[in-house]
């Protein structure tokens, strides 16, 4: 025990020095535990730390590659572009400028939608792009989700959504709030034809997305450690002036409180989704 209490550990090489002696891309330092993993091994493990199980965030394209059958992905509604209905001006950066900058970096919008197959089961799939304005839901995301739900209803297939979002897109004001209503009416129709909506909550998922289509799904799966909630930790701490426990709003916290069906490690996700698609598959004659 005394060893741990010693202020300066003896006979210890600082890991920082060790870091500097190797190329940047050969080893990946885990954001969760700080341990180093051989980058190729980390990538093969779908960006999950083999030591602590920390799930690193992934871009939409990486999610699609991980989940769907090779060659089955067909992107839909990629033409949908954000407008600036409020003519939103801000002292820092105007909405239109922000969108233009992100699109120059190759990000299209905060949601990528398409049709695909998983283990040869057809599905409509919408994946959040957290890198585009924090995965916020504006008119484009609302429209993509609504169209995907309608497509799934028309073609008799399930809808799977992978959701990471900071909440509503503030720059679209009330129109972004109304996307919660729009996605909900579209999902109600999907329910009317008894096709399932499977919602996969990944880190972080908060605000208007969690308070609409992501939480009204028939099946809700979350990634280990994902932060999921309505109001963010900072907002709550400011409001009630009370420190929140560290496990607050994690996937495990939600499971314990009965809010989700399961916590599934990334490596098992494809198999779990495939199983649901098989179990809930309706023959066209009955649909």
């Amino acid at each position: 025990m005394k060893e741990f209490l010693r202020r300066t550990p003896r006979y210890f090489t600082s890991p920082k020095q060790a870091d500097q002696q190797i190329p940047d891309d050969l080893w990946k330092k885990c954001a969760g535990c700080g341990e180093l993993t051989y980058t190729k091994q980390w990538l093969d493990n779908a960006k999950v730390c083999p030591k602590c199980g920390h799930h690193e965030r992934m871009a939409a394209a990486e999610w699609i590659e991980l989940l769907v059958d090779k060659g089955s992905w067909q992107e839909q509604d990629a033409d949908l572009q954000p407008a600036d209905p409020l003519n939103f001006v801000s002292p820092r950066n105007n909405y239109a400028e922000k969108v233009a900058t992100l699109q120059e970096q190759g990000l299209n919008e905060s949601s990528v939608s398409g049709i695909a197959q998983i283990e040869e089961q057809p599905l409509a799939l919408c994946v959040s792009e957290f890198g585009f304005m924090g995965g916020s839901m504006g008119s484009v995301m609302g429209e993509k989700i609504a169209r995907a739900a309608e497509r799934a209803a028309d073609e008799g297939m399930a809808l799977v959504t992978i959701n990471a979002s900071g909440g509503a897109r503030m720059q679209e004001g009330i129109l972004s709030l109304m996307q919660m209503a729009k996605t909900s009416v579209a999902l109600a129709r999907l329910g009317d034809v008894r096709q399932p909506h499977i919602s996969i909550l990944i880190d972080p998922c908060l605000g208007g997305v969690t308070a609409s289509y992501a939480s009204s799904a028939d099946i809700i799966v979350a990634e280990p450690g994902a932060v999921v909630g309505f109001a963010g930790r900072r907002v709550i701490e400011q409001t009630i002036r009370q420190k929140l426990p560290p496990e607050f709003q994690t996937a495990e916290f939600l499971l314990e409180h009965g809010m989700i069906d399961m916590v599934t490690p990334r490596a098992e996700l494809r198999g779990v989704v495939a199983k649901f698609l098989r179990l809930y598959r309706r023959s066209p004659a009955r649909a």
Partner: protein
Amino acid sequence: MTAPELTPWDTVQIARHAQRPHTLDYVRGLIEDFVELRGDRRFGDDAAMIAGVGRFAGQTVAILGHQKGSNTKENLKHNFGSPHPEGFRKALRLMQHAAKFGFPLLCFIDTSGASPNLASEERGQAEAIAENLLVMADLPIPIVATVIGEGGSGGALAIGIADRLLMLEYAVYSVASPEASATILWRDGAQAPEAAAAMRITAKDLAEFGIIDEVIPEPEGGAHLDPVAAIAQVRMALQKHLHAIAVHSVSVLLEQRYNKYRRIGVVHERQATLFASRS
């Protein structure tokens, strides 16, 4: 009637005025034989959400509304009109109750948002709101919602999907309160007046976006100066809109409700791109 120099932030102050008529004032002024129905049958009874049945325009109706207080004591009792999950689940129970008995539903929106705290998250604030949205989308009864004061965020929308959405002249409706918007956008809640202007939250703005069906005029200076006149204006508007949608069959009603919400949003769509798929 509107003083032209009124800024959006001024409007927020009128919308939040303590003496402005709140849900229970409208219930007293509009509804005969009102009976409050309480509790979500799951956890508790949330005084931030009023639910009940009564008579309006010659028929039994169901009523839902956020309840703000007119003083500190009332506000503590009603949690400033900010519901916990049990409030939204009480509302859900009443929606299904109204559908079962075929009562039209009148909703009065007046909240700065759902209550943000540990207990709310533990009991599933997001799920409670999400479920109401899904149920209201398909609820087989006429729904008329009126923003009477402050419409804030998902907590407002959770009783706000309707066949007709009305808004009082000095009410506001926004994706987040101006303070929260300023914090999210600029990390500075003190810039709420700027956020109020940038976010386009007044009745006039929402009418321009095509989100509301009617702006209900208020007495000069605001509803708090003449509540009786304000409530009379709301009565006329509710009668008119309930009457107009009562003629529709349930399937037509739901089809129109679907189209009303399905079309909201502004996007650009490039027509030229034919092959947009990635892999």
